[in-house]
């Protein structure tokens, strides 16, 4: 740790620093914290960019006397999480400098900040609503927002009028400007946009010139809900965000609160958590594989994948009673112990799954059409991945072994024997390879965790019976979900509910890189590339 401290003079050298803090990483997840002035932010960001730090998260927090933008920078190779805060006491229209030209991933984070808080990022190229409808006149995450937005019907009518107007405007502009160009709204009702994503494609014939993802159709404002509910009441929400890999999200939230409370779950619970999370990860990857092949036009692998996934869901239902939106983890443990018969099922499932993987390889990976459709399609270079803050299998398909389970190990992952599969292809085929290799690794982890599981209680001794009160402070905890880095930034003020709970969801950053991956490809590649990002819309829209 001293090494890092010595090396970090470059961060603030010559900049106006209002205050600097050295954090204890084990306590709240940050290494260093700086509060700097607005003017030096861009300079600081450029320094981070040039040293291969990626923008992990940007959270806006509404304090009673000022707005605060919290930028988190981190590294892939050696974990060093720096929290940079910029404050602005203007409570009506706070201005901040934009980072969207330095980190392209900041684009969406800043739009979200404008959307939720009314924070204005100067010189942002396209500062419009992101998650809320374009006509919304509210900033719902502000503390003074009381929920008086008018009736729903009026909002919808206004939106329709707005969209009609926009459509006319755009089409008129197009008529004048490009005679042969073509706009297509792919989604929100489309077979392969995986839920309610809308892609506004600007086409020349079948060639995609530009892509504008429009998100927010399943936006429920979980972050606002978190501020209204107490810590325990918010747990069911986790399964509703990433419904495909809900266990990892359970892990993220429960782990965060446990970290903030400074308590540890019982050893048995740790093992139950790990093997159920890994099983859920396999289920998530299988669902991805099936639907991805469906996107490419092959329907049969979808059913094979769902057959395997059904086995996993059966096991998880035996364990948790739920099949999809798990609410299984509790503060200090898990809800139920391992039932009888689960071990036998798991032992039967693991060799069966390994046999199936061989079939998948023959049926899919070796297939000439699959290779033609995926190789050198949707290339995301390492530099672009850095710029967008892409994580998870998409990043590992660029050949970078960044996995939270190894990079900043949590729970009992250090004891597990597994590898981080990486492939250098940077394309959709490499993403496929990474995910298939991860299924194998997850099988290994689940096998080990189940075998090593000790006897004992499923809840720790200090496990709170009622909703806990988290001591004041700022905490960050990240887990590796099936889609990548899932982190949560908690600002607690010692009361029964969070002051601010920012969810850094993996698909959000991954999807924002879509437009750069797509330019120059054909319409058929849009679904191939979109499928390879493995988006789960409710997790992006939150």
């Amino acid at each position, binding site marked *: 740790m001293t090494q890092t401290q010595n090396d970090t003079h470059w961060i603030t050298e010559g900049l106006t620093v209002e205050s600097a803090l050295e954090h204890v990483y084990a306590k709240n997840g940050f290494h260093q914290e700086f509060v700097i002035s607005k003017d030096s932010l861009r300079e600081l960001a450029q320094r981070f960019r040039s040293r291969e730090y990626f923008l992990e998260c940007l959270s806006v927090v509404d304090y009673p006397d000022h707005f605060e933008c919290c930028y988190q920078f981190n590294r892939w190779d050696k974990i060093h999480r720096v929290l940079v805060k910029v404050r602005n006491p203007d409570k009506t229209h706070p201005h901040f400098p934009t980072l969207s030209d330095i980190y392209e991933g900041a684009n969406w984070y800043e739009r979200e900040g404008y959307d939720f808080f009314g924070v204005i990022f100067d010189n942002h190229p396209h500062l419009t609503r992101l998650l809320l409808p374009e006509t919304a006149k509210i900033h719902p995450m502000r503390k003074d927002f009381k929920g008086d937005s008018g009736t729903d019907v009026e909002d919808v009518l206004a939106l329709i009028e707005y969209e009609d107007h926009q459509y006319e405007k755009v089409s008129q502009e197009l008529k004048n400007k490009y005679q042969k160009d*073509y706009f*297509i709204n792919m989604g929100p009702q*489309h*077979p*392969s946009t995986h839920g309610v994503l809308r892609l506004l494609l600007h086409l020349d014939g*079948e060639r995609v010139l530009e892509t504008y993802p429009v998100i927010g159709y399943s936006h429920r404002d979980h972050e606002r809900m978190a501020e209204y509910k107490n810590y325990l009441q918010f747990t069911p929400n986790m399964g509703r965000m990433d419904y495909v890999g809900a266990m990892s999200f359970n892990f993220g939230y429960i782990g965060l609160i446990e970290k903030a409370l400074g308590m540890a779950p019982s050893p048995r619970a740790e093992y139950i958590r790990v093997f159920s999370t890994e099983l859920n990860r396999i289920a998530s990857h299988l669902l991805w594989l099936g639907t991805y*092949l*469906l*996107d*490419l*036009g*092959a*329907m*049969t692998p*979808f*059913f*094979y994948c769902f*057959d395997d996934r059904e086995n996993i869901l059966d096991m998880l239902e035996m364990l948790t009673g739920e099949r999809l939106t798990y609410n299984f983890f509790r503060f200090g443990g898990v809800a139920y112990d391992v039932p009888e018969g689960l071990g036998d099922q798991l032992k039967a499932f693991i060799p069966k799954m390994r046999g199936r993987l061989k079939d998948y390889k023959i*049926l899919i990976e070796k*297939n000439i*059409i*699959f290779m*033609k*459709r995926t190789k050198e399609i949707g290339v995301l270079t390492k530099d672009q991945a850095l710029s967008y803050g892409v994580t998870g299998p998409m990043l590992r398909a660029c050949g970078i072994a960044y996995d939270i389970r190894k990079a900043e190990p949590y729970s009992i992952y250090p004891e597990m024997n597994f590898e981080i599969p990486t492939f250098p292809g940077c394309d959709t085929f490499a993403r496929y390879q990474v995910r298939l290799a991860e299924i194998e690794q997850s099988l290994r982890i689940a096998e080990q965790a189940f075998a090593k599981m000790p006897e004992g209680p499923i809840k720790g001794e200090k496990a709170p019976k009622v909703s806990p009160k988290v001591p004041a402070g700022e905490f960050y905890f990240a887990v590796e979900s099936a889609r990548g880095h899932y982190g949560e930034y908690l600002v607690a003020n010692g009361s029964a509910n969070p002051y601010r709970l920012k969810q850094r969801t993996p698909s959000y950053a991954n999807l924002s890189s879509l437009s750069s991956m797509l330019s120059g490809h*054909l*319409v*058929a*590649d*849009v*679904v191939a590339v979109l499928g390879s990002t493995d988006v789960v819309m409710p997790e992006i829209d939150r």
Partner: protein
Amino acid sequence: MNELFRIILSLVIVIGFVLINSLVLVWLERKVSARIQLRRGPLYVGWFGLLQTFADALKMLGKELIFPKNCDKVLYFLAPILSFAPVLGAFLVIPFGQHLVIQDLNIGLLLVFAFSGLSFIGIFMAGWASNNKYSLLGGMRSVAQNISYEIPLLLSSLNIVMMAKSFRLSDIVRAQAHVPFILLQPLAFIIFITSALAESNRTPFDIPEAESELVAGFHTEYSGLRFGIFFISEYTYVFISSCVATALFLGGSHGPFLSGWAWFLMKAYFVVFVVMWVRWTLPRLRSDQLITFAWKVLIPLSLFNIICTALALQLLKQ
């Protein structure tokens, strides 16, 4: 007069056969896909769900026929008919048995290709008339695809014509009395089946209706009976392709023990099964790759095959 009566009677029989056949084919497709995908398929309506497709067809008949806003009504109305009618014409020359052929023309093979080449006009009209962007893309893809794949289709069947020395389908079948041409021309058979798949818009070449990209492609805006006609014409096209493949490569109605038409139908349905099996195994090609495949792989290969056949024939003659 007698001849006219015969033609009308055969037309009625053909239409009846086409309708029943496509219902059976849809059932077969469902069963094959279900078994490949570890499912059961239709089970309860009729014997092994055989009447399920009939029930679905009835449902389709009961649906409202809609003209979408701003569509070209004449073309929109004509498109399904135009895609279906040429396929019926192709039945004219298929030799189901030794004498079971409606009109044994001496240019039978060309007639089949001429008629089947027409059907994409209906598809393109549907794409154009729907006034839907996805449909338009589907229609454009369909034209590109049909133009590309017509060539290897014809070139590969040219080998057979050279060997049988006739365009008359019954002559071709007669030439295979001892050895079916698939044994002599395996490459031509593969090229023929591949191009026939592409011509009939089946996976892996179903890009005009690629449901994961273009929603439903050229028939996005069609519903009810009109959609049903597109559906039937696709299956009939598959059947026609299988019949032609049977006549050209599998020895047509030749076979021991059973009567000719039974052999012919068995062989044709086997080819249909293979087509379905391919469909439920492979992903879809991209439109540019599809056309590249036709021009860079299929056409050179079939030209090469023609040269080889011509050389072999000439050498054998001497």
